[in-house]
């Protein structure tokens, strides 16, 4: 690689030139930042400005550029120079838009801009252009596990997009639950009548697709490797093993129905009480005619009990979402065959999302009666059942006699091994417990993917056993890179949602395989070419990185050194934050790139009344929120110096001690919400940061500092109003506390 040649470009557009002394910034870049080339420009992001930079890269052989203009999140198309290393000094959103108006603020505003230029120059000198993961892969095919509606759709959509698919189904035929239905809830206007499921047609199209290879009666015996190079062992029912390799995986293993025998008070186990699946079987048998019970009696009255063992802490605590529409559909089976059949749906809340309201109205038109109530007991009565329920509108006990009772039970995800339970027995087994070893082997037997990862054989669960990493912000993503979940294994859902879900997951899987083949990261830093480098000679084999990696990307080699599976890595830097000896770094993001910025600023002395506060802001939520505060011209203190970080999980405590030693008065860490309802894009990063910082109090006390000088805050992307308040309050708190006693020693 050519010798490093640096250049800084100072923009005076967007009012920067009016509010700031741009020549002074240029002088700082040159004198203090030691930039080889410094240029000012009145409109840097226009064609002429960009061309100027391109010319310098080409003719002046500039290899490192510092752009002092707007936020790194702005004008990314204009400032895209993939052949050089680049840093950005945020003078617009970070300075002129957020520092109070007026000449009395000119001094602090300029100081802030000066420091951001110093920081960007310092960072630049430590940064390298990421070369990309040298371990390129070439596999772009997918494995889809599960041949139900979700799995078939994922396979079909991926194949239609031109990717080869291996579809694995443990049963003897494709179709899953959808194949067992008589009709499905309508998904087309006018949303009034049950529709054909289309499952057999889809199965036929999947089966005959040239890019899809279907393995029936097959399970996954082992999954190892990483995106772009997964190695799979498929086990046939016969016992024979087939080895295949794929680029990415979609797990669409669906759900099991909740066991109605666990609901004896609702008649589970009685002759004439069935669940939705049981009723579908009866409807299929009747083939559009009058529906008959198992004993052959034609059903003249039927009662549906909603939320059977659902939204109930004793059974399933959640709502399965589809059951109200499913009961409406099944009530229509009866009404369509014979309008005289009495059909009553006893519900607590009727939840029909999407266009379900139209379907609900259609059922009312057909004479299906809906009773808001709660069933207390279902018992045998004559040749049928007696449903005792509390009518919640009339606030009275009521009784309905019916030939048949249908329980709307919920979806239990088929998500394999519970990783939390696995961790527990693994630890106990390592301690020598024979019982734990036995439990571990039992757990292993229900595994779906049989991952060889050190973190366990299946995808970690988010909530209630559903395999996902965040239902809302990043659907389909799991905590295992390159493996995506779709359909009811991810969250409860109906066929329409599952097919949409499967399409999304297939696209994510394709993206993961493509990125892996280019040596790039997957979500949420999709396209990032940097990857962790480890200086193994400095490693003390403490295992913190392997344990703390939220994605199971780091294994151990035979000498117990960390072994990075770069393709599994999401580039969050949690390992870098964890490493006590600081041997892990990225080319453009390291202990040094951030540390040098921290040390680059000018710290005024303790008599200046100008405190300095370091803000380490997560680039996913907090930094955008700060930018948006700027966009909304929300004023905050000019005493803060903000450095974006990939995740609070990447914050190494050395940065904190360096900052305090340098004379900063305080450190604010801004990250995503942690805990059960976490919003961290890297799942555990903000949680780990919180944990690490909780341990830093002693260090601070040892330095003679108040523990409040380091504080952590949760900031969501929508908190542009709140974030300015957090800053101002914290600055006020530090002013009250007085200057750091460390000032002048740094």
């Amino acid at each position, binding site marked *: 690689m050519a010798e490093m040649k640096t250049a800084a470009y100072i923009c005076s557009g967007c009012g920067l030139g009016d509010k700031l002394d741009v020549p002074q910034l240029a002088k700082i870049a040159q004198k203090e930042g030691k930039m080889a080339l410094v240029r000012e420009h009145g409109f840097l992001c226009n064609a002429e400005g960009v061309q100027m930079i391109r010319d310098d890269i080409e003719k002046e052989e500039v290899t490192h550029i510092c752009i002092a203009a707007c936020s790194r999140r702005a004008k990314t198309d204009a400032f895209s120079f993939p052949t050089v290393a680049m840093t950005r000094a945020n003078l617009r959103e970070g300075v002129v838009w957020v520092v109070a108006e007026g000449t009395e603020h000119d001094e602090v505003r300029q100081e802030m801009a000066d420091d951001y230029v110093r920081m960007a120059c310092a960072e630049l000198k430590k940064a390298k252009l990421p070369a990309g993961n040298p371990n390129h892969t070439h596999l772009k095919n997918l494995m889809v596990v599960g041949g139900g509606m979700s799995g078939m759709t994922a396979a079909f959509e991926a194949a239609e997009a031109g990717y080869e698919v291996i579809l694995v189904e443990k049963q003897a035929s494709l179709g899953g639950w959808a194949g067992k239905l008589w009709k499905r809830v309508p998904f087309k206007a006018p949303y009034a009548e049950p529709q054909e499921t289309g499952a057999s047609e889809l199965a036929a199209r999947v089966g005959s697709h040239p890019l899809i290879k279907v393995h029936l009666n097959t399970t996954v015996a082992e999954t190892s490797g990483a995106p772009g190079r997964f190695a799979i062992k498929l086990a046939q029912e016969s016992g024979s093993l087939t080895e295949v390799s794929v680029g990415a995986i979609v797990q669409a293993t669906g759900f099991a129905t909740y066991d109605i025998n666990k609901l004896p008070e609702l008649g589970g186990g009685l002759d004439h009480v069935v669940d939705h699946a049981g009723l579908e079987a009866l409807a299929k048998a009747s083939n559009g005619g009058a529906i008959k019970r198992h004993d052959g009696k034609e059903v003249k009255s039927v009662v549906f009990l909603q939320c059977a063992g659902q939204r109930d802490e004793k059974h399933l605590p959640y709502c399965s979402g589809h059951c109200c529409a499913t009961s409406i559909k099944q009530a229509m089976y009866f009404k369509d065959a014979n309008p005289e059949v009495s059909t009553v749906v006893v519900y607590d809340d*009727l939840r029909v999302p999407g266009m379900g309201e139209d379907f*609900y*109205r259609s059922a*009312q*038109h057909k*004479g299906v*009666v*809906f*009773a*808001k109530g709660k069933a207390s007991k279902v018992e045998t009565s004559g040749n049928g059942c007696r449903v005792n329920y509390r*009518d919640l*509108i*009339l606030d009275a006990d*009521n009784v309905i006699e019916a030939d048949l009772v249908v329980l709307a039970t919920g979806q239990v995800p088929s998500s394999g091994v519970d990783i939390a339970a696995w961790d527990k027995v693994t630890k106990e087994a390592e301690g020598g417990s024979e019982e734990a070893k036995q439990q571990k082997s039992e757990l292993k037997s229900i595994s779906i993917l049989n991952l060889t990862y050190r973190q366990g054989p299946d995808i970690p669960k988010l909530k209630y056993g559903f395999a996902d990493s965040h239902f809302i912000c990043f659907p389909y993503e799991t905590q295992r890179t390159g493996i995506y979940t779709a359909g009811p294994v991810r969250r409860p859902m109906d066929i329409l949602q599952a097919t949409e879900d499967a399409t999304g997951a297939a696209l994510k899987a394709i993206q993961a395989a493509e990125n892996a083949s280019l040596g790039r990261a997957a979500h949420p830093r999709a396209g990032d070419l940097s990857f962790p480098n480890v200086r193994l000679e400095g490693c003390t084999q403490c295992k913190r990185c392997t344990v703390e990696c939220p994605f199971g990307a780091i294994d151990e080699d035979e000498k117990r050194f960390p072994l990075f599976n770069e393709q599994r890595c999401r580039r969050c830097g949690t390992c870098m934050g964890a490493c006590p000896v600081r041997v892990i770094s990225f080319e453009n993001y390291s202990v040094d790139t951030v540390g040098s910025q921290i040390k680059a600023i000018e710290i005024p002395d303790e008599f200046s009344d100008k405190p300095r506060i370091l803000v380490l802001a997560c680039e996913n939520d907090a930094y955008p929120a700060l930018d948006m505060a700027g966009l909304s011209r929300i004023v905050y203190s000019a005493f803060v110096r903000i450095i974006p970080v990939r995740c609070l999980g990447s914050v190494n405590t050395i940065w904190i001690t360096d900052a305090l030693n340098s004379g900063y008065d305080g450190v604010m860490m801004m990250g995503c919400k942690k805990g059960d309802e976490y919003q961290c894009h890297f799942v555990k990063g903000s949680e780990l940061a919180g944990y690490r910082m909780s341990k830093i109090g002693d260090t601070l006390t040892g330095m003679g500092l108040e523990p409040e000088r380091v504080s952590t805050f949760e900031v969501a992307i929508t908190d542009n109003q709140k974030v300015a308040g957090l800053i101002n309050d914290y600055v006020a708190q530090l002013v009250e506390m007085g200057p750091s006693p460390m000032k002048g020693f740094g």
Partner: protein
Amino acid sequence: MSELNQKAVALYGNNFLKEVTERVEDGEWVSMCMQCGVCAGSCPLGPHWEHSPQKIFRMIMAGKRDEVLTSDSMWMCTSCYSCIVRCPRKLPITHIMHGLAHYANRLDVAPKGQPTRELARVFWNNLIKTGRVNELKFSLAVYFKDGFSQGIKNLLSMQVIALGLMKAKRLNPMEIIGGHKCKDVGGIQKMLAKAQEIEARRQIS
């Protein structure tokens, strides 16, 4: 039990929803109620309803025929139409309540002596006599519906109001003899008789 009522019971058994759907004005809408309760919360006389419209709808679906038809709830309707304009399902609730009250009155199972029921009867008889309402005769008939002495008492209690109205020329004691009426009273009465005949033919009520 009136003959009409007996016939209805014989025909519909315990399927009251079907009976209402087929026999009550706008009754076909009842099954479309989604039990949100906005009607109950919107009724100015809500606290005085033994069963709110929401409950009436639920009771119809639950087959509570006697409780609904003998209730004086529907007779609390002031025809303010608040429920109609607020119903998210656009049920003509006011009309359904009127329809139910009319049906109960027709079957003669509505509560005896219910004041609004009595008033409605007097009002109708007053208007079909001449084609127009004679307010004085109507008022007197209302006051005297419970007998002569109660009528005098009612009248005395309203003396101030009546005198005020008379002074303002808004109550004319001469209306007692003659008063306003349509010219073609005969035509109107024949027309109404025909309407009744048609309804009987169609078994509408």
